[in-house]
């Protein structure tokens, strides 16, 4: 595939992710920060986010598995996750976190469990999409093209 096609694909994919709400404006901001001094800024941040996500999701699972459930503890984790997702622009994840927090407040175990599942879904979707995005970027770079930014 040639660069132009790759670039178009990338653009479409990014547009789609934005449209679908996987990402929001914050992600574009991150992309703006990527320059010569920090060429892999976005990827680094996203990688950090993935690690963070997995850690937090595990914590949440464990906390919800305890008897009795310490909702405050769960809430703390969700809060953290919300912050991180907001920073990278993971909109859907952030929204689910918001709902999750409500359930924690009302100590609705069933709601929490459902949210956790949803989070895990969203996370995997996001992860897949981002990884695809990064692969495209790599390919473009490898082909010598430049990465188009989202306007």
């Amino acid at each position: 595939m040639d660069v132009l096609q790759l670039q178009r694909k990338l653009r479409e994919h990014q547009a789609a992710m934005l449209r679908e709400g996987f990402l929001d404006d914050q992600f574009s901001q991150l992309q703006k920060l990527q320059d010569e001094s920090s060429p892999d800024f976005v990827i680094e941040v996203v990688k950090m986010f993935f690690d963070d996500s997995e850690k937090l999701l595990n914590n949440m699972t464990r906390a919800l598995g305890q008897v009795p459930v310490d909702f405050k503890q769960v809430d703390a984790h969700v809060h953290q996750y919300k912050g991180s997702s907001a920073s990278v622009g993971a909109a859907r994840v952030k929204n689910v976190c918001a709902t999750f927090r409500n359930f924690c407040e009302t100590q609705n175990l069933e709601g929490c469990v459902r949210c956790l599942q949803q989070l895990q879904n969203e996370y995997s979707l996001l992860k897949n999409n981002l990884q695809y995005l990064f692969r495209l970027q790599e390919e473009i770079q490898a082909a010598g093209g430049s990465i188009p930014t989202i306007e």
Partner: protein
Amino acid sequence: MWFKATESCNCIEPQWPADELLVKYQYISDFFIALAYFSIPLELIYFVKKSAVFPYRWVLVQFGAFIVLCGATHLINLWTFTVHTRTVAMVMTAAKVLTAVVSCATALMLVHIIPDLLSVKTRELFLKNKAAELDREMGLIRTQEETGRHVRMLTHEIRSTLDRHTILKTTLIELGRTLALEECALWMPTRTGLELQLAYTLRQQNPVGYTVPIHLPVINQVFSSNRAVKISPNCPVARLRPHTGKYLPGEVVAVRVPLLNLSNFQIYDWPEVSTRSYALMVLMLPSDSARQWHVHELELVEVVADQINRLHFDGVGYVAVALSHAAILEESMRARNLLIEQNVALDLARREAETAIHARNDFLAVMNHEMRTPMHAIIALSSLLQETELTAEQRLMVETILKSSNLLATLINDVLDLSRLEDGSLQLETTTFSLHSVFREVLNLIKPVASVKRLSLTLHLASDLPVYAVGDEKRLMQTILNVVGNAVKFSKEGSISITAIVAKPESFKDARIPEFLPVPSDSHFYLRVQVNDSGSGINPQDIPKLFTKFAQSQAVQTKGPAGSGLGLAICRRFVNLMEGHIWIESEGIGKGCTVTFIVKLGIPDRPNESKLAFAPKVPGNHVSTNFGGLKVLVMDDNGVNRSVTKGLLLHLGCDVTTAGSSEECLRIISPEHRVVFMDVCTGLDGYELAIRIQEKFKKRQDRPLIVALTGNTNRVTKENCMRVGMDGLILKPVSVDKMRGVLSELLEHRVLFEAI
């Protein structure tokens, strides 16, 4: 004189020869005299001894002596009738001499004593008289007391009932009993007032309806004074029963009885004593008795007569007052209950009204949202459609669709705004903003339209106009935009000028609005904006209608989209909320129009504390400021966030150090760091850290500026930050431009609190 000297007996013979009988009689008399004379003192002594009190003992002694001696003399005389010896004669002489002395002494003493004794006697008589008098008086008092008791009983009887008939009857009965009357009668005035009718009598049970005319002289006499008057038993009022006695009928007395009419009775206004109508009470002493009316009896009658009605009246009066009080109380209870009911009803009405308002607001909000969404879709898609290839006809259609939808969108906005304005639920959002930028933005928005219509647009801002003001920026802009927009709308050609000055007190005498008296102060100023256009003008008569909703001036002849009519109404509401005034002047059709408004804006206090509304979207303002190695410290316990913020700051050219916890932050912070960005999403850690940093750096110049980064959009967070002495607060997410602006602002003003 025969003098016979006897030889030896020394006897003295009497002078003449005594007759035997005479001598015998003398002899006996002397004997009895002596006896009497001797017994008298004995008696005296005996009785005096019996009575302890006798003041004149000495007199008694003297008297006794005198009598004893007299008795002795007469006793000795017994021996001198016959021949007696010289001794006897001597004793006789001695006795006589003594007797003579004592008698004379006694006689002399009696001269003193007898007047005393006489005076004692007179005193005794006087005392006896006095005692008799006292006895008489005692009798009188007793009788008076009796009558008094009777009166008391009478009044008690009278008081115990409020019934007038009973009172009168009882009075008559009691009087009759007390005074032992033969007959007692009461004559009452008839309704006409011209006659007296016999109403009650004591003895007769059913008095026949006798009447007598009221103007009889005897009756007038009785009525003219309040005393009981003796009248003749033959006068008409006294002739009540057939005269049965053999002798004279008893004395009759009549007295007036004042009648207080209950119809005159006002609750708080006791009628005067001088009433016009009287009844007549006639009292008859028993015939064939020699009784006469005594003064005290008359007094009793007068008193009773005077009191009858009053007693009745008092009783009735008290009851009437009590009744009126009860009535008032009941009235007030009723009024209170009514008030309570009304309160409850009002409360209910209020709650219902509130519910209705809420429901309406909810409805409006929902409808608004529901209406806006498709509206936006239409507008957006129509715009997009415009971008594509279209035939001229299609383009025209699309343009029309766009115009109509824009209009509709404006209308929807206006309706929502106005309804919120109307029920007062709209509140101005006060912020500090730049006046100049407001005007410039309006200009930018209107310029395209104006240039299409080839209207020239000029803006003149006074030099003394403050750069920053405190007020509702959005609404002020809306107002200016509306006014200028109208000016453009209704002008086909010519020019539009916008002038903004600070209103001076002198200019307030611009007497269009005489009741408007704005007073500028240190914290406020009045902005005066005037928009002149050379458009179609307005008929002066139509001017008042302009500000009313939905009214459209007929004189408007433009092809452009006709205004919904709400715009000016909303403007006026906004202006009023800003404590100002708006008015239109026009010289007439075709002569242009001037809209002026004055609003009150605040003057920001001190630059340090100015809360600058942060407008991150400054179009086309990509000043690539490089902050030249500004040393900053980022504290965030979330790795992702930390990296993002760091990247942001690095991009802007800062020298970024990061810390993952409060302790680490405190460890690595140094005076070289100019700004510390700390995340305060996670509880109180951030605030604590801020305090510790301030403690660490005593002097304000040395320490870095502390700025909080938070995703919380609530006032509490902002207040907390300000309270712990932070220098700024920014809301996440932070874009590059925003961060750039933040840093510039911070370095310039050393404070930045984003409006929440």
